[in-house]
């Protein structure tokens, strides 16, 4: 019986330890809570939109050239 209790306590301890490890890592919770992550995404999307617009313009120009010749 004593042995079993000891085993159970140890098991519980390891479980707690793993749970702590999983929840303990620092994440950007505060960043998301106050909404500042949107700023970063907005910046990335602006750059991305610029690149895509450039590609679309290039695509149109080449299509025009193809039709001319």
């Amino acid at each position, binding site marked *: 019986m004593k042995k079993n209790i000891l085993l159970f306590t140890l098991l519980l301890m390891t479980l707690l330890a793993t749970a702590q490890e999983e929840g303990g*890592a*620092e994440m950007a919770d505060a960043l998301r809570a106050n909404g500042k*992550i949107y700023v970063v995404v907005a910046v*990335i999307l602006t750059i991305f939109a610029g690149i895509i617009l450039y*590609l*679309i313009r290039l695509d*149109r120009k*080449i299509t025009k050239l193809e039709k001319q010749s």
Partner: protein
Amino acid sequence: MNKSWWKVLCVVLLVYAVTAGLNVFNAPAFEVPRLNILNESIRNLYFHVSMWFSMMILFIISVVHAVRYLRTNNLRYDILSRQYAVIGIVFGILGYATGMIWASYTWADPNNPAAASFTAIAKEPKLIGAGIALLIYAAYLVLRDSISDIDKKARISAVYNIFAFAFLFPSIWIIPRLLESLHPGGQGNPALNPRDVDARMRLVFYPAVIGWTLLGVWIATLKVRLQFLKHKALLNDTNRH
């Protein structure tokens, strides 16, 4: 613009990769595993790893066109093969650059600043292998531009392209798995292993890979069409063969 449905798909997937990848929606579906050291930087999987996946796909397209050139002697395939190889190299360089930033915050020696732990990083088999692979592809461009005869250029570079593709296997697939490395994903297939990548992350990762690859294909097709226009007379000359 012609055949634009996949271009729209490309933009949609990449916008999804950025927004869901950084979880602006604050949705539980786009949560990532909480791991020490990696922390939120685990989201780089959607960008850094996608670069290498796209590079591999673009190199496969390139080698397929190289083989098609050798079978048909049609210079169109030579142009296609070259342009896909170039955009593959660009994605490879971007993968390298993003990996440099990510590594310096995660598995680079934490006791030293990024620059000082360079000696440890320089020994990484994954970095050396990828470096060799990219240099071999860079030599493909050098080789091409050093031959002035058009047919000879196309033939030799198609053969070299097949060699460069074959060399990707030892340099980025086999040797890095045999040697010890600090870079994650040494066992099995990085990012494809079910025990390696959280199920929630696949929801963003696979669309991101498709999106980035489509972007590469889009840029390549633009360059191919420009080259077709430039060499129109040559390509339409049916008496050459």
